Structure formats: C-alpha cells, structure tokens
C-alpha cells in the first residue's frame, strides 16, 4: 500500500497551521458546537430560535469570509491531524463549495428566523433547533470537504438530522413520508458507499484531488466507468433525478413548512453538487461517455417534474414537483459538460436554493392569508394583502425563469450551452419546462390571489393569526437576492464561471491540496 512507499517519509506537516486556514473548517465547527450548545439549552424554549439564528449568522459570516478568500487566493485547504494529503482527511474549499455553502447558510438563516412562528413549543422540545444546526453541519461539511469518504459521512450527518426534522410532529402523513424518504435515501447512500469501495479498491486513496490526478493513469486498467455510473445513480437518487425521485414527492409536503423550505432549498442541491464534484472534476472522460444518458435523465426529470406539478391541487406538493423539474434543468449542464453549461448549472443551483425555499415559505403565508393549501379552497389573497401578492408574483416569475427573477440567466446560459453543443432536444426541453412552470404557477396566482375568497368568515381555527411583519420579513429577505440576481447578474455569473473553471481544470485545486508538488 501507499503507506509503505519510501516517499511517505516525513508525511507529517511541520510548523503551525496558518491562522487564516482555520476558516475552512470554521462553518462546520460553529454548526456542531451550536448544535451541542442548543442541546444543552433545550429547556430555554423561548430563546432557542434566537440562539440558532445567532449561530447561523456567525456561520454565514465565516462562509462569506471563506468565499472572499477563495475568490481572491484560490482554493483553501486544511488537512486534519497534520498528516500530509492524501494520508490525512482534507477540507478543501474552492469557489463552487464556498459559494454553495454561503447561499445554503443564508437560506438556513432565513428559515431559522421564520421558524420562530412556525415551530411551536412541542417542536422546540423535540429539538428542532439542534437538528437544524446538525443538518447545517452536514450540509456545510459536504460542500467543504475534499475527501470522498468524508463526503459520505457528511451526507449521513445531514440525512439523520433531516429524519429528525421530517417527523417533527409525528403525524401519520409524516411517518408515511419519512418511511419512504428514509429507506430510499439510505439505499442511495449505500450505493454511494459501494462506489466509494470500488474507488478505494482501484485507487488506494480517497482524497478527491489525488483521485482526479491518478484517474488519467488508471483509465486503461481500472473499472472507472462502473464507478462513475454508480456515482451517477447514487447522487442522482440524492438529487431526485427522474427514475429514482419518488421519495421526494412522498415526503416534502408533510413536515413543518420551515423544514420543507430547508429541504426543498438545500438537500437536492447537495446531490447536484456531488454529481458536479464526482463527474465533472474526478471522472470527466466517463462523464463525456455517459453524457447521452445524463441528457435523457435531465429531459425526463424536467418534463415529469413539471407535469407532476401541473396535476397537483395542494400547493406544497406542487412545489415538491417543481423542485424535481429544477433538478432536471441542473442536470442539463452536467450532460453538456461545457464551461458555459456547468456554470449555468451552478448558477441555477444557487437560484434554486433561494427560490424553492421562498416558494415553501410562501405556501405558509398563503395558508395564513387564504386559509388552506388547496387550490380548490384558496382565494382572495390579493384583497387581503397587495404586498404579499407582489412578492409572490416576483417569486413565481423567478421560479418560471422569467425576468426580473433569478431564474432567467442560468436558463439562458444552459439553453445557449445546449444549442452550442448541438443538444436541440435539451434546449427545447429547458424552454418547454419554463413554459409549463409558468402555467402551473400562473394558475396558483390566478386561483389563490386574484380569485375572490371561496369561503366566508374565519376558515380554519387551527391557523394562528400572526403579525404581518413576521410573514413578510423572511419572504422579502429571500426575494431581495432573487431579484438582485435577476437584475444585476454579472457578478454572480463571474463567480459561477470561476467555479466551473475550477472544476473543469483541476490544476489549481490539486496544487492547493498538494503544495509540494504532490504524488
């Protein structure tokens, strides 16, 4: 094994770690420490939301500082236990991981702020906030790790925290949804582990930069195609790609709306992130060979997702299907693999994190204003709140990919990349999906907002009346970045291009992990 190589002599770093390098593990450390702290403070039910929001604000600051540093100096790496990579487990933040971590933490912060009204005392007593922090530890760890087995561990961390969040309330529908979600996600991570076992058997290393370097030399002798296909299946299942997406519509409409907003915003994007990391960075040749398969998966995911959305009466279930069709659009860039396509996927993922969370939070606001989740019963929200109607219109336009929302530019990039690459079918599917999404959401707007109220008087006694500001504040703070991304996208596109360039050309990433020249 590699450990017996004479070159392994002096495999330990000497000298202290530069203090700025601690930034790369800061988000995960803060999240785990905050989770433990909240567990100890579990009897302070009134203050848990404030504690969690404060910790998430700290994490957001750490992630933002990390992103600024990565954008100016290139990938930032820290290896645990002072072993030189590939022996130690590396944390490696590049532009892709750092920017996803920033957006994910921002979305979680908004969700934590809006949870103050959605999560009741029982939910707090059952540990909503510790679960939230542990899930964010897993999410940030997945975005920032540079080791593929460590990625598996972070997947499991956020998965088990998400189980806790999903069944908060123990309603029959939640338990039913959680059973399907749990079993299918467990199977997906088991597939991930199988692929990783083969990978270890072929490469003898688990460090992603090391694998990316060694893949070129092993292409003739090792079953890399099998490994890449298994990763496609495992991460495709995590991302809810078409033939393996059935856990998502079964589960995402059952939990508390804040939880649904978190899941819809973050969890499928981690699958997309892992697909980008494994197929674009580590196995580019295998990805090119699989591109036709990925293209069909992308088209079917988009179309089936949006068709499912068209058939739903419950707005939460409709938004679940829209999450799926968004994943299909992200897979389009993976199928193309060109720099423009991959940056389109990255920008779309950022857009999707913001918009999908905003949609679920909007569903909560619609219930508080209109008294129901069902399109058959909703109505008259425009008369009750013009402001909410305007915000909802902006979010719907963004989700459908129309200006001035954030969905326009990534779709333009992906459609252009598809036409450049000769994928007319893919470009057509992206445009058709946008069209059908605007039909589905336009119908929600017409029925829930424009139509007169369907029932007279107070509708549902279980709906608490909450101050309007508590409804508007989280929605507005998600809508502002959505509109900014739609109106002045240059800076975001530049970061996405930087991130995709770092994935396609791994030299900078590898040099950051192996400063001494490496293996």
């Amino acid at each position: 094994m590699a450990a017996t190589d004479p070159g392994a002599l002096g495999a330990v770093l000497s000298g202290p770690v530069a203090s700025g390098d601690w930034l790369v593990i800061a988000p995960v450390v803060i999240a785990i420490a905050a989770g433990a702290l909240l567990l100890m403070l579990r009897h302070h039910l009134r203050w848990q939301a404030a504690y969690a929001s404060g910790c998430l604000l700290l994490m957001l600051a750490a992630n933002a500082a990390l992103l600024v540093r990565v954008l100016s100096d290139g990938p930032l790496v820290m290896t645990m236990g002072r072993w030189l990579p590939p022996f130690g487990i590396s944390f490696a933040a590049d532009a892709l991981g750092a920017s996803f971590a920033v957006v994910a933490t921002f979305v979680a912060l908004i969700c934590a702020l809006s949870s103050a009204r959605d999560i009741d005392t029982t939910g707090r007593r059952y540990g909503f906030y510790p679960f939230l922090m542990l899930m964010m530890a897993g999410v940030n760890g997945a975005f920032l790790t540079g080791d593929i087995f460590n990625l598996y561990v972070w997947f499991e961390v956020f998965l088990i925290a998400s189980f806790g969040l999903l069944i908060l309330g123990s309603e029959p529908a939640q338990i039913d949804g959680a059973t399907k979600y749990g079993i299918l996600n467990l199977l997906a991570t088991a597939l991930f582990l199988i692929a990783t076992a083969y990978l270890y058997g072929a490469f003898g290393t688990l460090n992603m930069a090391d694998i990316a370097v060694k893949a070129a030399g092993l292409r003739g002798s090792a079953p890399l195609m099998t490994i890449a296909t298994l990763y496609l299946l495992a991460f495709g299942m995590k991302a809810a790609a078409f033939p393996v997406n059935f856990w998502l519509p079964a589960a995402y409409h059952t939990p508390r709306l804040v939880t649904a907003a978190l899941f819809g915003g973050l969890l499928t994007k981690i699958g997309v992130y892992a697909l980008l990391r494994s197929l674009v960075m580590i196995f580019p040749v295998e990805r090119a060979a699989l591109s036709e398969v990925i293209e069909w998966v992308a088209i079917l995911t988009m179309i089936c997702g949006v068709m499912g959305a068209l058939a739903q009466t419950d707005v939460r279930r409709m938004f679940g299907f829209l999450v799926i069709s968004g994943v299909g659009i992200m897979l389009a860039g993976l199928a193309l693999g060109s720099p423009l396509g991959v940056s389109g996927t990255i920008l779309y993922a950022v857009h999707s994190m913001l918009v999908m969370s905003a949609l679920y939070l909007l569903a909560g606001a619609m219930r508080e204003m209109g008294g129901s989740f069902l399109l058959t019963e909703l109505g008259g929200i425009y008369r009750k709140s013009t402001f909410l109607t305007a915000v909802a219109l902006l979010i719907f336009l963004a989700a459908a990919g129309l200006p001035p929302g954030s969905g326009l530019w990534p779709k333009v990039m992906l459609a252009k990349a598809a036409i450049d690459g000769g994928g007319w079918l893919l470009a057509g599917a992206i445009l058709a999906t946008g069209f059908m999404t605007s039909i589905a959401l336009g119908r929600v707007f017409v029925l829930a907002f424009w139509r007169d109220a369907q029932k007279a008087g107070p509708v549902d006694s279980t709906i608490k009346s909450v101050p309007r500001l508590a409804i508007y504040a989280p929605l507005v703070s998600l809508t502002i970045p959505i509109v900014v991304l739609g109106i002045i996208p240059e800076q975001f596109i530049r970061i996405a291009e930087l991130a995709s360039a770092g994935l396609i050309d791994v030299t900078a990433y590898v040099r950051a992990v192996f400063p001494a020249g490496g293996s």
Partner: protein
Amino acid sequence: MEAVFSLLVALFFGVGIYLILSRHVIRIVLGIAIFGNAVNLLIFTSGRIMRETAPIIPGNLDLLPGPAANPLPQALILTAIVISFSFFAFILVLAYRAYQEIGVDDTIGMRISEPRDDALPPMGY
C-alpha cells in the same frame, strides 16, 4: 481469498436486494441491513485481504518491515457500521410507528401522504 469474499459479497447483495423488493416494510428494513453489511464486506475486500500482521511500525524503524493488514478499510467499515446501525435502529422504530399509525405493513397500503383519490386542480374559475 478475494475471490471467495467477492462471492460472499454477491450473496449478501442478492439476499439484501431480494428482501428490499418485498412489499412489506419490515422485510425491506431487514434487506437494507443486509445490504449495508454487503457494502461493509465489499470495502473490506477492496482493501485487499492480507496477512494477519498488525500494521505497527517497530520503534527502531520508520517504515513497516513487510506486508501487513491494511488498516484503512477497517476504519472505513467501523464508521459505516456505526452509521448504518444507528440508521437501522431509527428506521426500525419508524417502521413500527408507521404500523401503529397507519395500521398496515405494506407499501401498497401506505398512501397517507399521497392519497390515491387526490382531486385534480380546478380547471377554471
């Protein structure tokens, strides 16, 4: 030795997948447990099976004197066992609760979150 182990892994995978294909939640859960153990054995086998020599470097040397067992797969499996055991415990309780709440141990009957007779959205005002 690896060949024998890979046959064993294949047997585990076969049994696991067969159970997962069942309609009954409890059999699916047992299938997942066997599937997880198949993966653990797979990691063990892909780390190559070597002598029963512990990989400990003597005090006067800098390197291992000869071939020894590979410790890394064992560390990976240990992690995977801990994770899959906790998941198994959780899913087992969840399946039992589902049986209590829904009254069926059958995926065809579990339609609470996605009811069969769901109405279509209104076609007009």
